[in-house]
């Protein structure tokens, strides 16, 4: 799951490069051009969304009574 999602983003960027490259080749018909534009615009949008989807969270793993859990971790509270 984790790899899939981060790989999706990477694939989207690759696909964008491909789409734009094809568009710049001057070999496309208007119809193909519009299709490329639509697919590319969709990818830009979903990628932008993914950039902001990542949740900001800085956590530390703790072990309480043998159970693993996480708690917020702030570096400013830590001693030098």
């Amino acid at each position, binding site marked *: 799951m984790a790899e899939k999602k981060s790989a999706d983003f990477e694939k989207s960027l690759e696909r964008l490069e491909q789409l734009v490259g094809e568009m710049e080749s001057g070999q496309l018909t208007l119809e193909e*051009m519009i299709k490329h534009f639509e697919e590319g615009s969709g990818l*830009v949008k979903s990628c932008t969304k993914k*950039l902001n989807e*990542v949740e*900001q969270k800085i956590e*530390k793993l703790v072990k309480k009574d043998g159970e693993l859990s996480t708690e917020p971790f702030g570096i400013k509270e830590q001693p030098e």
Partner: protein
Amino acid sequence: MNSERKIYSVAEVNRKARMVLESGIGEVWVEGELSRVTLHSSGHWYFTLKDAQASVSCAMFRNDNAKVPFKPKDGMKVQMLARPSLYEVSGRYQLIASAMEEAGKGSLQEQFEKLKKKLADEGLFDASRKKPLPVLPRKIGVVTSPTGAAIRDIINVLTRRFPNIGILLVPAKVQGVGAENGIAKAIDYLNSRGDIDVMIVGRGGGSIEDLWCFNEEIVARAIARSEVPVISAVGHEIDFTISDFVADVRAPTPSAAAELAIREKTDFETELALYRRRLGQNLKTMESNLRLRLNRAAHSYVFREPQNLLLRHRQNIQGLEAQMGSLLRFGVQQAQQRVDEIGMLLKHRTESRLAMDRQRTEKLAAQLRMLNPLAVLGRGYSLTYKADGRVVRRAHDLAAGERLTTRLAEGKVISTVEEIE
């Protein structure tokens, strides 16, 4: 005698002895077996070092023993760097150790080279084993001390580059006894979670003993079997550990590891904006090209008056429709006419046939009428029969007094012959 005598206190003599011992021998490497090991709650270690011939009391203070990468046990053979000294309080001679290695394992450098060769021969350092780092990791795992400089540097750099990044720190001891086990477990744990896309394993700078746990085989194996890409970040630029060789990427420092773990968010945004612009630009270029072509075409003869052309087409179509309609209508009419014609013909034929038949009948009837002897009577002729019924044709056939029957058109007359002429 007494006045010449220099009297020392016990403390004084012990101190003097200590100074002689310390300056006279200095630091030496000494090898022996550990016994009576006491790991004091103060953090200092006390033990006896012995071999077949002799034994000596030893101490290793907290600051020094923190760097020893193993736990001393009775019976363990060690080499240690120590200076002979004297515990002034009891006057006991002892060795103060500042470094300790397991004997038989060779020096740290030898151990390092030996393990490095072994793992290299297994192919653990091969470039083909290196996993690529994800472009956009959702969550970054960090295995290091929660109190060291490394974690601060890593978090600072990560959050500066990508403000909404997810980070999970798995606290681990990064020096001293048993540190390697904790590091290996932390790496395995991060793999078991399933939400970690990349991890940083490391610590800040220190002596070779401080960094030693990253030269342990158990850590190397944990990194090698990690499904999650591992960035190693141990010590400074000049420090190379076994972990660095096994990791997918070696970062010279923890800060550098953070920089490798994720690109700057603005980088991504710039790249995406560029793609957006190129997409739009390409479409626009095509649009204006097409418009140009369209304009050129529009000014050509054929399209100069598109309305007319359209009208002409429409007229054509309407004409065709009309033609088709009239053709259809014509067809129907023709068919109808033909049916009518046939009908009339039939009627005509029948009628003329009837007329003809009637005519013929009449003619025949007339003929018959003419042939009918009785018919003549109508015109005033009459027929005269003798008594035997024969028709009288010649007067000579008759005799006077003969009885005759005369048939008229209407009725009969009976008469008697008077005379024959």
